[in-house]
């Protein structure tokens, strides 16, 4: 229960921190930390406009998308505390429920009959497809390392002792950050601020959403960030007591947000057709982690 409260809590500030980082990096003062949340609240109060082309799919899409992200958050533990639920193989559920949300966001984008949104949908489907093996191999490696197959058990029995395990943790954090970037369609895979529909992924998919629906989609995006931040944090706070874990958790979330902001400020976006290679490279990195785990377990003879 604690974990979902923490995720909700950090998601409130997450987007604000990213924005603030980017502003500072570009030498501006920028909006307040709460500005994204205020935007969402404003959207929730607004009316909606639907395209004549759309059908019921377009209306239920954002709702299912939002619910799926919320459901996914439920299995994320917080260090020594379980998530709302925890069971063997819960990360399979985690990945598949997110995929369900993605399915609906893709088809609701296609429902508008717009070529731009179709383009975004196509890319989203392809990129997330390539990102999933990386995630599964990563978690599989840690399942092998710890001998457990649920998020909570993996993280609570994960002890980063030797230098090699720190390397593994670092690599895992890197892969997860990148997966989070892909899932949220951020730099270097996608740039939400290009204002060029031809080059966007996620943003272009929601061009036609407005009002309450758009609010749901934006909230889901913030939640996703905080969720991945929580997973990354869990790598490092598994064995700690609450008094250490809580500040460390918040610090890692903050660090994650700042990192995202810095990447967006200082890195250029990949060419769209280079993205699949990049994402597949993540799978290779996960495979490296797997080999590292084999080393730790002395499976190589």
């Amino acid at each position: 229960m604690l974990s979902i409260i923490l995720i909700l809590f950090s998601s409130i500030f997450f987007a604000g921190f990213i924005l603030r980082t980017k502003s500072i990096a570009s030498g501006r003062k920028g909006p307040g930390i709460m500005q994204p949340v205020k935007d969402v609240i404003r959207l929730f109060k607004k009316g909606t406009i639907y395209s004549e082309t759309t059908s019921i799919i377009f209306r239920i899409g954002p709702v299912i998308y939002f619910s799926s992200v919320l459901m996914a958050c439920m299995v994320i533990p917080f260090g020594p505390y379980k998530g709302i639920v925890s069971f063997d193989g819960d990360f399979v559920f985690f990945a598949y429920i997110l995929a369900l949300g993605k399915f609906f966001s893709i088809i609701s984008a296609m429902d508008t009959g717009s070529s731009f949104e179709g383009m975004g949908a196509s890319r989203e489907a392809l990129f997330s497809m390539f990102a999933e093996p990386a995630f599964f191999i990563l978690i599989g490696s840690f399942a092998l390392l710890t001998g457990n197959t649920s998020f909570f058990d993996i993280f609570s029995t994960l002890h980063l002792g030797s230098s090699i395990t720190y390397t593994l943790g670092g690599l895992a954090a890197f892969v997860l950050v990148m997966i989070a970037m892909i899932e949220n369609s951020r730099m270097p895979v996608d740039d939400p601020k290009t204002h060029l529909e031809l080059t966007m992924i996620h943003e272009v998919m929601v061009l036609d959403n407005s009002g309450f629906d758009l609010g749901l989609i934006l909230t889901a995006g913030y939640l996703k960030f905080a969720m991945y931040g929580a997973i990354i944090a869990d790598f490092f706070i598994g064995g700690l007591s609450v008094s250490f874990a809580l500040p460390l958790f918040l610090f890692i979330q903050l660090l994650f947000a700042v990192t995202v902001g810095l990447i967006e400020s200082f890195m250029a976006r990949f060419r769209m057709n280079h993205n699949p290679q990049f994402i597949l490279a993540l799978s290779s990195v996960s495979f490296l982690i797997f080999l590292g785990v084999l080393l730790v377990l002395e499976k190589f003879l």
Partner: protein
Amino acid sequence: MINILIAILIASVIAILSVNVKAKGIVTLSGVILIALISSIVAVKALLGHSYGILLSGPALFGNVMVNIDPLSAWFILTINFTILTGAIYGFNYMRKYIEMKSELTLHCIAYLLAYFALLGICSVQNGFIFLLFWELMALSLFILVIFEHDKPETLRAGLNYLVQSHISIVFLMLGFIYVVYKTGSYSFEAISDFSSQQSTLAGTTLFLCFFIGFAIKAGFVPFHTWLPYAHPAAPSHISGIMSGVVIKIGIYGILRMLLLIKTDYTTIGFIILFISLITGIYGVMLATIQHDLKKLLAYHSVENIGIIGIGIGLGCIGLGATNKWMAILGFTGALLHTLNHSLFKSLLFFSAGNVLQATHTVNIERLGGIIKRMPQTSLLFLVAALAICGLPPLNGFISEFLIFGGLYNWLYSASLLSLIAIVFSLGGLVLIGGLALLCFTKAFSVVFLGNQRSTFNSEINETGFWQLIPMYMTVIFMMFIGLFPSIFINALQIPVNQFTHDVVFNLNLIKVGALDSLKTLNWLFLGFILLVLLILWLRKIQSRKKLIERGLTWGCGYSPSGVKLQYTANSFVRSYSKLAKPILDIEKKEVEVVEVFPSGKHYETHSYDKIERILIDKPIRYMSRFAELFLFLQNGQLQQYILYGIIFITSIICLPLIISKILSILHFLNNL
């Protein structure tokens, strides 16, 4: 029981022959319902542990025939019953459009019943000879079912392709059975068991591989899948549904049955099955994604799902070999449950495709679009099935894939380095299959049903009749039931799986191990998810009550002509994917380069072809026919030359022994030098 079934079959066939064309469907339907009822009662009993067995005395030619419905058979019989029943109800309404093809309909109805009977027979007899007879009966009756629209040449060609390949499958099965009969002198299935326990492991493995190839052709494992993408689109939709739903599953049944019978090195077999299944799954879905023919797309997805089932079976076998009990249980449970699941959602998908086909007379997805506004029920049914086939929660596909994932992760603990590598690749492969399925079905669903209509059709597109939708709703309800209450089905699978693992019957409520335990939590999560969605929908409703809800044009970035031509097509949707997959697949592009200053209308086409089919089937056939053409001159219609061949033959027959004896004597002479 058997007498009653045969009596019903014969009575229905005679009735079909004698009644007028409108009543044929009713007779068939009632025949199917009766057979399904009777066999289901027996099967349910068997599934609860009371196997039905009867020994029929047969002539000395093939010995006594053991008819035995054990839990494994019972599971398959129940699966078959449901899909055949829904298929019959759907077909009953679907075939009304063809009411003027009287004799074809008669044949179709009879063949449907025969195919059903043969499927039940295959699942229950324990005698190789009779098994092969039923297998042949199934192949032939399905051939008749497939070529219903035999006036179309491509249908006939697909049917013949199917017929030939099923007979290659029969040849392999026959080889296996004959090998056993040769060694033990008995056709009964126990002989296979005896054979494998007496002979060396190598002999057992060879025997299994022989059977495996035979069954794999039926099931559609790569590289034996090439008949499948032709036969499914050619058949009427309910036949595609039952073919994909249950007929290819009979191959899975055969593999499982042989696993039960042949006592051999399970680990090796498991690795072989796992390897082939992974390739099957990935290759099937890779090809499915680039198809433009809706039914062909679904056919390739059957290949993919057979791969997933195969992964489950492979895991189960490796679990047996490594005496990893839970891994075996998870693998086999996942495979068996996925068999049921796939037969449900794949038949539903084909039924929906059939509705679309009847409304628009095309299954080329590039010509469709916007159908959800005209056929909302069909579209939503397709959507649910698409979600299920992608393995997305909270539907049934997720449960079985979850179990297979559970088996994979269970393997981690007891694995050597080699198996660890296998695990990583299986994981990556399974997830890739899921991802590609998502890509493929978002494409299929959104291009066919969403957006604007892409071309005009002669007739008005209307929702399919209520009675044709009934079987589809039955299937959907069943699917949701499995998704929301998986424990019932896992419990039902205890006894069949137990046949493999020889374990005490496990009680789901008591185990704390692995993925099976998780299902209870998943139950609540799924319910919670549905409630959450409903809650948010309700919130939005409250919110939107006071607000302005408008309708407008789709946002076209400042440029808004009618969006039909600008819409994203299926081809462009998978364009970046097909560019990536191009080295592995065979995609042919036809485009005209724009050279003029004021270009006229240009046409752009892509076609995909199965590369494995090109390498394994087309090329050898081309070489063979080229070789055979060299001998065309022999058959030249001249009587004298035919006689001449005879002279040459007889002369050589007479002279050969003489020449050979002379050569031998020369050799003898040389040796003595």
